[in-house]
């Protein structure tokens, strides 16, 4: 089994990964967005590495970070190994404000789906190839991305009616191999007059 340092040297040779100097306590490799899926595939499947659990995906906005150079956003992935207890590794991709695109990890790890939805919700980073990129924590009528540094913390946004889950349910049915012939209306989404008048005041 390889240690985190050895994994990093392997990544350096194979994919031209760079060391993140900010992480002084663990090992973090910066990879380019183009290689991300290949790198993760390697980390997950290589017999000597076996980082089989995606622990966390965190978005970072470097807008007000002192003396920061380079792209504004970053997405950081934390992995750990169940097969080799104690092994941890972090990956980071830098995302510029113009592109805002990162390849998705859906299909490699099952929990990447929700983590990526959260990063999309909070930072507006779009994950290419994600099957169902919707907001996760904020409501459907929310405009903007709250964890960006330029979003004022107290800018509140009211929701007039409850979220609509039927399209997601239909999508899930289609994923399971069913074919929706006739759609049904969700009760209560149309009669929101009594809610709208009172709640938006």
């Amino acid at each position: 089994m390889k240690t985190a340092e050895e994994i990093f040297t392997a990544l350096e040779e194979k994919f031209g990964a760079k060391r993140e100097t900010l992480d002084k306590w663990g090992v973090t490799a910066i990879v380019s967005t183009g290689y991300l899926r290949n790198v993760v595939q390697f980390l997950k499947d290589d017999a000597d590495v076996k980082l089989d659990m995606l622990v966390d995906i965190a978005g970072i906005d470097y807008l007000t970070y002192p003396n920061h150079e380079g792209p504004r956003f970053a997405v950081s992935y934390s992995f750990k190994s169940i097969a080799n207890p104690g092994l941890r590794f972090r990956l980071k991709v830098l995302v510029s404000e113009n592109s805002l695109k990162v390849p998705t990890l859906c299909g490699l790890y099952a929990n990447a789906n929700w983590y990526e939805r959260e990063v999309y919700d909070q930072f507006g980073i779009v994950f290419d190839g994600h099957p169902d990129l919707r907001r996760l924590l904020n409501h459907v009528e929310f405009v903007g991305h709250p964890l960006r540094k330029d979003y004022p913390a107290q800018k509140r946004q009211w929701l007039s009616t409850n979220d609509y889950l039927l399209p997601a349910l239909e999508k899930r049915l289609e994923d399971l191999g069913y074919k929706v012939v006739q759609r049904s209306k969700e009760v209560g989404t149309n009669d929101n007059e009594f809610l709208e008048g009172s709640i938006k005041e």
Partner: protein
Amino acid sequence: MTAEAEKPNIITSSLDFIVNWGRTNSLWPFPYGTACCAIEFMSTEVGRYDLSRIGSEYVRFTPRQSDVLLVAGTITYKQAPILKRIYEQMAEPRWVIAMGACACSGGFYDCYCTVPGIDHIIPVDVYIGGCPSRPEAFFDAMFDLQKKIKDESYMKQRAERVKEQLEMIKAKTAEAKANAQEFAQEKVAEFKGFVKEKEQNLVKKAQFWKE
């Protein structure tokens, strides 16, 4: 009739007393528990504190069967329409307790996603401070609510409601009458026009045949 009902007399005041006695001692709460305060509410229910001592034996999770809406925890903007709807589904008489700092004012979550106090959405009868409120504080709030209920007059509320209804009925009848009259006048005018036309036609026909 309404003026008589508003005056306290021996029947109405004793009826009030009985109704209020029943209401104060069987307050069934609807625990709308979202966060930490709900855990403290659980502690209030069991063993040491025992909420059933004051008649709130049944915790009801349906708004149709409960009297007190107990909002325990932070209400976010995503949650707000649901809380509003649940409040509107509850049958009268209904009371609301805002338990904990978050429900009262948003607490220390002064943020893009939290409602700064549930009184932005629904009326509140009793506020409890604390983050989370202790079970003792919750009991205190229940006693306050009971006091408040004891001061309410069932007959007065009913008289007011009847008054409103009577006024509404009166207004509606007046409106209907006016509508009916208008309608009748219109019809009469229409009919008159119709008769006139017929007459003219007859005259024309008669002239034609004459010729």
